[in-house]
């Protein structure tokens, strides 16, 4: 072993101003790459969306695949959203009873529960649960097909993969989200009433009558059907992330994770816009 230990010569270290310039330069480079990546991602998403839209509106239509995806997104997510809805119902019931009692407004319990479930919690919880289950599943499935050249094989067989794989999945998400939201709402209201009825006698009929007293369709329908936009976000992000995957098993993992994270994030951001839109146009 050499007896000469490594000691960097003082003369090799650049002077402090030069080091600062290097640091600033690397920060600027990193920021530029970050911005480029950000705009490139949105640009690619725009091109992808256009290709899917064009494929979706032109024949031949992939009805059989659409039905398979409706089952995959709808029926198979139903138990999960029902359980999530049931849990939310109990939680809201417990919280609402405690809070309303403090203000002497216990009579408002049914309306509070109905409005908070249907207008706020039901749609968001359904969106996030479906984003987790369906977004990850779609992202991973399509990414796996991409890295094993199955999507190339579909294209080589003269079949438009945007029509067969993306349009059907996105449409299934758009159609199923509102239906799943209704299921979540129903379960939440049922368990919310049940949790209340365990403490104080309250018939289900009375609970529903009080809860929906004076309510109009416009108070609930836009909130339920806005989840079609959530469906669009979940399907679009999952298909986009899946179909642009590179890099084997690690790429598949990244696609699944990114699908869930980005879909959930965009879903919550979209909700901000949608709530304002509904308040302006439907209230």
């Amino acid at each position, binding site marked *: 072993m050499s007896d000469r230990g490594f000691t960097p010569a003082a003369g090799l270290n650049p002077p402090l101003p030069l080091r600062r310039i290097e640091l600033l330069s690397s920060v600027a480079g990193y920021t530029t790459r970050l911005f480029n990546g950000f705009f490139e991602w949105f640009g690619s998403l725009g091109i992808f969306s256009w*290709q899917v839209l064009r*494929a979706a509106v*032109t024949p*031949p239509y992939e009805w059989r695949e659409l039905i398979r995806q409706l089952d995959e997104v709808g029926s198979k997510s139903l138990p999960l959203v029902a359980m999530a809805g049931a849990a939310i119902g109990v939680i809201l019931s417990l919280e609402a009873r405690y809070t309303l009692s403090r203000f002497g407004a216990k009579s408002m319990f049914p309306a509070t529960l109905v409005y908070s479930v249907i207008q706020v919690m039901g749609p968001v919880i359904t969106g996030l649960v479906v984003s987790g289950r369906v977004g990850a599943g779609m992202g991973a499935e399509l990414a*796996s*097909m991409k890295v*094993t*050249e*199955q999507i*190339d*094989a*579909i*294209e*080589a*067989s*003269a*079949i*438009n993969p*945007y029509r067969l794989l993306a349009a059907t999945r996105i449409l299934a998400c758009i159609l199923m989200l509102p239906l799943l939201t209704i299921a979540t709402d129903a379960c939440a209201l049922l368990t919310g009433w049940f949790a209340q009825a365990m403490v104080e006698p309250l018939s289900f009929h009375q609970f529903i009558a009080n809860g929906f007293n004076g309510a109009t369709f416009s108070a609930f329908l836009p909130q339920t059907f806005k989840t079609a936009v959530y469906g669009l976000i979940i399907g679009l992000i999952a298909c986009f992330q899946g179909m642009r995957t590179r890099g084997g098993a690690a790429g598949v993992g990244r696609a699944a994770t990114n699908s869930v994270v980005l879909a959930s994030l965009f879903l919550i951001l979209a909700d901000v816009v949608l709530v304002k839109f509904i308040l302006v146009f439907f209230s």
Partner: protein
Amino acid sequence: MATAYDIATKQAPEQDSLAPVIAVENVYKSFAGHKVLNGISLRVERGETLAVLGRSGTGKSVLLRLIIGLDTPDFGSICIHGHAIAGLSLDRMGEIRKKMGFLFQQAALYDSLTVQENVAFPLEHHRRDLPKPERAGRVRQLLAEVGMEGDLDKMPSDISGGMQKRVGLARALALEPEILLLDEPTAGLDPISSAEIDELILKLQREHRMASIVVTHDLHSARTIAGRLALLNEGDVVIEGTFEDLQQSDIGFVKEFLKQS
């Protein structure tokens, strides 16, 4: 000369009977600054089989992907039956792809479908005019041609690599293509399976008279199945001709390749 695709009818154009089936003219392709194809030109006529040989990374598979339109060239033109494929939409390119069969290096079978569903897949999308029993009969016939008639309901993960290639070949032939592109059909197979696949390709070529390009490392396989060989190096054709032409060549790279094969 290349003509534009018939946009008005959205149908594949009539074939130019004088033009070669596949014409690759001065094609360049780079990935992330790395030049893969460097002005390559090739022609394949009807009923002819061209074997493309070369070291790994010389752009052999990329060439096939460009011909079927899965990638686009940076420069140069690719014509199928005399019609340039550059700039066609997916659906319009699809009309041309219906005349092409492609065997991927790893077979690329749909892993959620059975063997027979894999072969039926192109038929179910493009031959809906055929009654279901007739389609099923055609699938069985194709699988019998490649010796897989006993494994109809197996999943791709339950069969060997050689069997997957056979199924991939049956799927490539499903639409009765006029052009067959084979990417390393014998790669990773034992000598007996390789010989079986070679025999199968020869038999199919005799029966269907397709224009074929076979990308391979395997000189013995190339000599068996192809009438003409093209040796690639650094993204361009070093020599093109019969096996005897290659043997008589004075080019150092050709001699080295033949010596090592």
